[in-house]
């Protein structure tokens, strides 16, 4: 049995779903096995529809306040498990894969969304991750039935 942790840098992807809470717990459990780094990453999608003002200037609704709220929320989640919060911007799956590739992530942890609507909207997230991640991906389902 090795004493080195199986994954020195674990990165967990979160959104505001229950399933991603389960993913964070699993990531924290693996992180607790040895010394290492745990990052909790959330991708902020670019504001989809800027409101065009006079003279072509674009106004983004509640831009700064919104980003601040997201940052505080993410800090809260990371703080609970002693991890670092990382907020990236861009198309979520691609932005996280990029970040993981540049930051030497050894394991990505993500939630699989179960609901039919969620799967259509977000299921492609896990799919993209699986196909493009630079490291193994641990997919955790929201455990409704398991003991």
């Amino acid at each position, binding site marked *: 049995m090795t004493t080195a942790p199986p994954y020195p840098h674990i990165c967990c992807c979160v959104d505001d779903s229950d399933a991603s809470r389960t993913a964070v717990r699993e990531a924290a459990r693996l992180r607790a096995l040895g010394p290492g780094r745990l990052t909790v990453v959330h991708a902020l999608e670019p504001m989809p529809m800027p409101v065009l003002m006079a003279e072509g200037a674009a106004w983004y609704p509640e831009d700064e306040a919104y980003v601040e709220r997201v940052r505080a929320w993410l800090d809260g989640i990371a703080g609970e498990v002693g991890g670092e919060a990382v907020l990236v911007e861009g198309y979520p799956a691609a932005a996280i894969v990029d970040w993981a590739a540049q930051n030497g992530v050894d394991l990505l942890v993500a939630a699989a969304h179960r609901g039919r609507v969620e799967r259509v909207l977000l299921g492609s997230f896990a799919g993209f991750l*699986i196909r493009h991640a630079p490291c193994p991906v641990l997919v955790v389902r929201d455990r409704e039935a398991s003991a």
Partner: protein
Amino acid sequence: MSGPYRHIAACVEDSPASRRALQEAIRLDPERLSIVHAAPWPLLYSGGGLGGWVPDPEDLFSRSRQWLEDLVSETGRGEGVLLTGYPQVAVVEWAEEARPDLMVAAAHRGVVARVLLGGFATYLAHHAPCPVLLVRPPFAGDTG
């Protein structure tokens, strides 16, 4: 003391990517290792009426069984589990009974396999009764 998952099931077929998945499962040092292979039903061959060749299912499965036995003895640990049917469904059904703590599989199995078998990894990720670890094949030029 052993690794983070007591019972790990590694899903294997004959590809470098799934060898890598098996290595990852071993690296996590489970108390119990199941090496699971699902041999698909031979539905892809045309029937006798068209003059096509129909393989004997027994022959096909005995070859799969032999391959799996060889892999298990080469691995030197774990138990082989041979399933038949539509692979992802068969594997998930098995897992619901056997209740592994983690399933490990290759992240993708090449274009041809993906077209024939659908997204094995994606299906597993959404239906397995436990966390699923998906392992990529090595990048070209990877040293590890």
